[in-house]
């Protein structure tokens, strides 16, 4: 982050040794610049919980009401609408209209947890719809929570509002228990990560949808009828890849689609470059758009000759696609979710 902003986690840590942490964080710029991608955490030779410290310090800001307006609005929206996008909870299941999908109250082996962004964002709704169609095609017995689904709290926790996160987690666990949910599949690596690692007392299995599709292909429950003759590269989302070690299933899905030629960027797998969509960064505009990592990333994809930059995270999809749109690159490269590619090849 040092390259782009004043944010230097070490300075915060050193200062809190002899100063009141609140004082340090109030005086210093940059605390909202961290994307919580955890690249530093994974590398730290001394095991310092850098991401945890960032979240803790942001917590002090939230407690004191010192929050950037867009983040304040997102937090408020979650409290009111159970999503950060300021849209009514009553409209949450609109995306599924016309699709053959049942409510989990009617039973099902798997709960497909859609997530806020895929539920409300027009671009991401396509991904959610694609996932439903894929699961139907494979004959998976699953259901959704409909309007009862609420925010997982992952981003809110990273924005420092631990209290609301804990409230949401408790409430969600209650809902999952009510419908006897044993297995959850998520669209977003962010929901996946928080369910898997941050929900205390949870008694369910969590999968990212790429893991489920990979196993469906392996079991022979999904087969492809159409070719996609494209060169594709895959961008590893931080919350799926470096934070949870899910590297192979997305690649397995891509390589089993007929026609796709998978090429790897230099920064692949653990070495992946963050798109800057995490840690609440979807709600604060980066000031120096020249240096956006997403832009560098799209450039890297084009360098390896990819026609399609595939990813498996709603935030990555939005940040990367934004670069393509604003940079007038639509002729050269297309950003797609893996689910969309799978659906297209069915």
């Amino acid at each position, binding site marked *: 982050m*040092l*390259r782009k902003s004043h944010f230097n986690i070490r*300075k915060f840590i050193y200062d809190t040794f002899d100063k009141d942490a609140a004082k340090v964080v109030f005086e210093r710029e940059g605390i909202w610049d961290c994307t919580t991608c955890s690249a530093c955490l994974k590398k730290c*030779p*001394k*095991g310092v919980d850098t991401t945890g410290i960032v979240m803790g310090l942001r917590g002090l800001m939230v407690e004191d009401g010192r929050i950037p307006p867009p983040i304040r609005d997102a937090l408020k929206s979650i409290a009111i609408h159970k999503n950060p996008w300021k849209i009514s909870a009553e409209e949450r299941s609109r995306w599924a209209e016309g699709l053959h999908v049942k409510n989990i109250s009617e039973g099902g082996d798997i709960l497909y947890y859609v997530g806020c962004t895929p539920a409300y964002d027009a671009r991401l709704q396509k991904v959610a719809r694609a996932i439903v169609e894929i699961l139907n095609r494979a004959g998976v017995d699953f259901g959704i929570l409909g309007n009862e689904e609420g925010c997982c709290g992952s981003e809110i926790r990273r924005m420092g509002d631990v209290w609301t996160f804990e409230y949401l987690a408790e409430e969600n666990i209650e809902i999952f228990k009510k419908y006897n949910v044993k297995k959850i599949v998520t669209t977003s690596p962010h929901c996946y990560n928080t369910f898997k690692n941050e929900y205390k007392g949870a008694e369910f299995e969590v999968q990212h949808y790429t893991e489920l599709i990979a196993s469906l292909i392996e079991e022979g429950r999904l087969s492809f009828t159409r070719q996609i003759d494209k060169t594709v590269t895959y961008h590893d989302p931080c919350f799926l890849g470096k934070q949870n070690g899910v590297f192979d299933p997305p690649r397995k899905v891509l390589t089993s689609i007929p026609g796709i030629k998978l090429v790897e960027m*230099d*920064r692949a797998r*653990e*070495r992946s470059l963050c798109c800057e969509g995490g840690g609440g960064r979807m709600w604060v505009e980066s000031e120096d758009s020249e240096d956006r990592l997403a832009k560098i990333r799209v450039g890297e994809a084009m360098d390896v000759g990819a026609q399609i930059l595939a990813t498996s995270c709603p935030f990555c999809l939005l940040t990367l696609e934004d670069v393509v749109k604003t940079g007038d690159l639509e002729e050269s490269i297309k950003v797609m979710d893996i689910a969309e590619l799978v659906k297209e090849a069915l």
Partner: protein
Amino acid sequence: METAEIRIGVYICHCGINIASTVDVDSVRDSISKLPNVIVSRDFKYMCSDPGQELVIKDIKEKGLNRIVVASCSPRMHEPTFRMTIQQAGLNPYCLEMANIREQCSWVHEDREYATEKAVKLVSAAVAKASLLEPLEEKEVEVRPEALVIGGGIAGIQASLDIADAGFKVYLVEREPSIGGHMAQLDKTFPTLDCSACILTPRMVEVERHPNIELLSYSEVIDVSGYIGNFHVKVRKKPRYIKMDKCTGCGMCAEACIMKGRIISEFDVGMGKRSVPYIPFPYAVPSKYTMDSENCLFITKGKCGKSPACKDACSSDAVDFEQKEEIVELDVGTIVVATGFDLFDAKEKPEYGYGLYDNVLSGLEFERLVSSSGPTQGKIIIGGKEPKNVVFVQCVGSRDKSVGNEYCSRVCCMYTAKQAHLVHEKLPDAKLTVFYMDIRAFGKGYEEFYDRVREEGVRYIRGNVSEIIKKGDRLLVMAEDTLLGEPVDIEADLVVLATGIVPRRDVKEVANLLKISQSPDGFFLEGHPKMRPVDTATDGIYLAGCAQGPKDIPDTVAQAKGAASSAMTKMARGKVKVEVTTASVDTFVCRGCGRCVEVCEYGAPNLEEVEPGILVSQINDSICKGCGACSVACPSGAISMKHFKNEQILSQIEAVI
């Protein structure tokens, strides 16, 4: 045991004021004097002083005392002292019991009344046990004048030579076809820049020529049993498919091999190629060829052309595809473990791109590259060109919790400085940068060398490299200069990772084989971190070199000499005292169930058929370590632990409450 009257003398130490300021010594003395069998109860300023010991000796002689209780500091401190004292007065040293009223009473409590009450109880328990103590005979076993040294790196070589020079027979077992170990792969050594081969080769040749050393190369220890003085060892000699007595080392077989230049050379860590019959490096000892059975077409497929070219090429008829492995059995008195280390696999740090980019090398690969015996004859050429910009990265796999290695590898700072110097020497115009966390230049002449390298123009930047990515055909090394708090990007043609030292892959199996322990870092555990740095918890087995923990060559040689000396001490005397506080079996009570055999980690108990159909446990005193597990496990109560018998401990419990 004779049923003579028990006459106990109790001595309560003031330890200056260490005990006396918290414990009312007079009151303890008086309470204890009333206990049965206590003939004298005294207090004294310093029991461990000469007058203190004299007092005990005088009382034993004059008052006919036959059991002594000293209430003072921890028995871990002065038990040996007072055992010697009473021995001087003619008592068996095991007729002593100590009460720890300093470390476990006066120093940890503040209330005088409570501390005094507790001291009385502790001394009473000691008196109770003393009444039941039995004299024990100290035993000695013979120590065979032969040693086994496992591992033929510089540690094993040095230990073997020292032991052999002292006149003892040494069996040196080396897994690889040649001795020499990692040191043979190095180019120059820091800080003196001696050529590694130049100082190592003479020692290797000495090993080969030494009349007292029997070298078992390309061999592995597969079983160790017995105990100090009498270890029984099985060694597997792997087939070389080449007759050692016939091979002249001429190399015609390697020349002829149809796989020539197609097999990765282990010695050159993948940077050079070799044939199926190979000699790891030119100055190998023994200078005999070995057939790489895994890659030999004739061995794996049964067919190699019309007939194996190597066999046809050998003019001394040394190639022998019929060779089988051989198990050699050895009896030795002592063992030196010098099994060395493995290099950290830098692929575990994906951010550095090792294994991804050809111009990111491990420290050892760079040694081979820069060595005149290496694949490029010492020319620093990477991707066909001389690098203009070289970056060194320190602490790769060391001091790093994220890969589970918290320790410092102790050689990387200095080998990096040396490597930077070597590049500077060969490519004076190259720009050299070292990224580091801290520089540890602790040895003799090390800091001076580090200063010299910096003065030569090597730039040291404090900060861990965050990532290395491709930029054209160069590498972009990205980091933060943490002293300036600024990002640094360096374009490099070559990156050398200072890969650290890790325990051998099979360290666990070797630990089990030898029944020695590992410390949390995975290396073998020494007897005591300060006072017994070359011993293990198993008598007669000693440690040398990186098997015990990362160290540089001088420290390795010093430890090897220490291990050799420890082994020699036992062999020179020819006898060794064995544990006397062992378990013994009451053969009338034993019903031969074998629980003791199951529970013993050392194989001390054995069921023996004393009469047809009647099994009775026998415990080998020389093997028993005296832990007492068998005594607890024995369902019939037939096993008792000398000096820690049930009735002795029960009497302590009774007295202490």
